[in-house]
């Protein structure tokens, strides 16, 4: 009977938000294969938690599990990706490193690149703390309060990260577009 109830709660609280869960995991891990692995772990954790926890906002609850599971996964598989900071210098250092590590030059990368891909790359280049806040807002459509709950951060931090993520994004896209203008 308890198993049946948990199954019912899983259908009610988890299944409706699986697309959001996969989307967040994909943005945080950077690819769909890893995201699917993470979401599989998320389902197991959620199922286990449903037996003992009361769920209020099921979407925020599930996305918090996604976030924590992804961070655990990244810590195990890609610890370098897990630099959680609000320091803008980390963003700039990360971008410099991308070029040093043999990434395509901006000129080469721009050839035949659609705007959507450009934006996707710009989001992917954000440090994880900025990226998760931006994705939770712009892609998952969460309110500031929900983002604060999911990330365990004060609302002021959410506001600051979101504003800075957008500014980084605009600057990054602007730089590439101006470069594109010179190249084409």
């Amino acid at each position: 009977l308890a198993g049946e109830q948990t199954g019912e709660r899983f259908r009610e609280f988890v299944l409706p938000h699986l697309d959001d869960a996969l989307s967040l995991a994909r943005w945080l891990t950077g690819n769909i294969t890893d995201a699917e692995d993470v979401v599989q772990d998320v389902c197991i954790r959620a199922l286990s938690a449903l037996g003992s926890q009361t769920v209020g906002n099921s979407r925020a609850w599930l996305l918090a599990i996604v976030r924590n599971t992804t961070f655990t996964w990244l810590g195990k598989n890609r610890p370098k990706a897990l630099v959680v900071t609000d320091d803008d210098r980390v963003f700039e250092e990360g971008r410099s490193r991308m070029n040093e590590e043999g990434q395509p030059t901006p000129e080469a990368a721009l050839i035949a690149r659609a705007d959507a891909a450009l934006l996707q790359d710009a989001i992917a280049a954000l440090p994880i703390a900025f990226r998760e806040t931006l994705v939770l807002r712009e892609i998952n459509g969460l309110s500031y309060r929900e983002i604060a709950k999911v990330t365990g951060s004060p609302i002021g931090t959410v506001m600051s990260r979101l504003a800075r993520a957008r500014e980084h994004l605009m600057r990054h896209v602007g730089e590439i577009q101006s470069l594109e203008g010179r190249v084409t």
Partner: protein
Amino acid sequence: MIDNSDAHAPPEEDRLLLHAYIDRELDAATVLALERRMTADARLKTE
């Protein structure tokens, strides 16, 4: 670090408020106060 030396850029707190305003995340009283300030401050409105 965010460069606050630009005299044309609004202070950090105003920038955060503007983002929250666009996201419709501010309470009614803060919206009114911000709109009043934007009416009086062209630079804030432009931002």
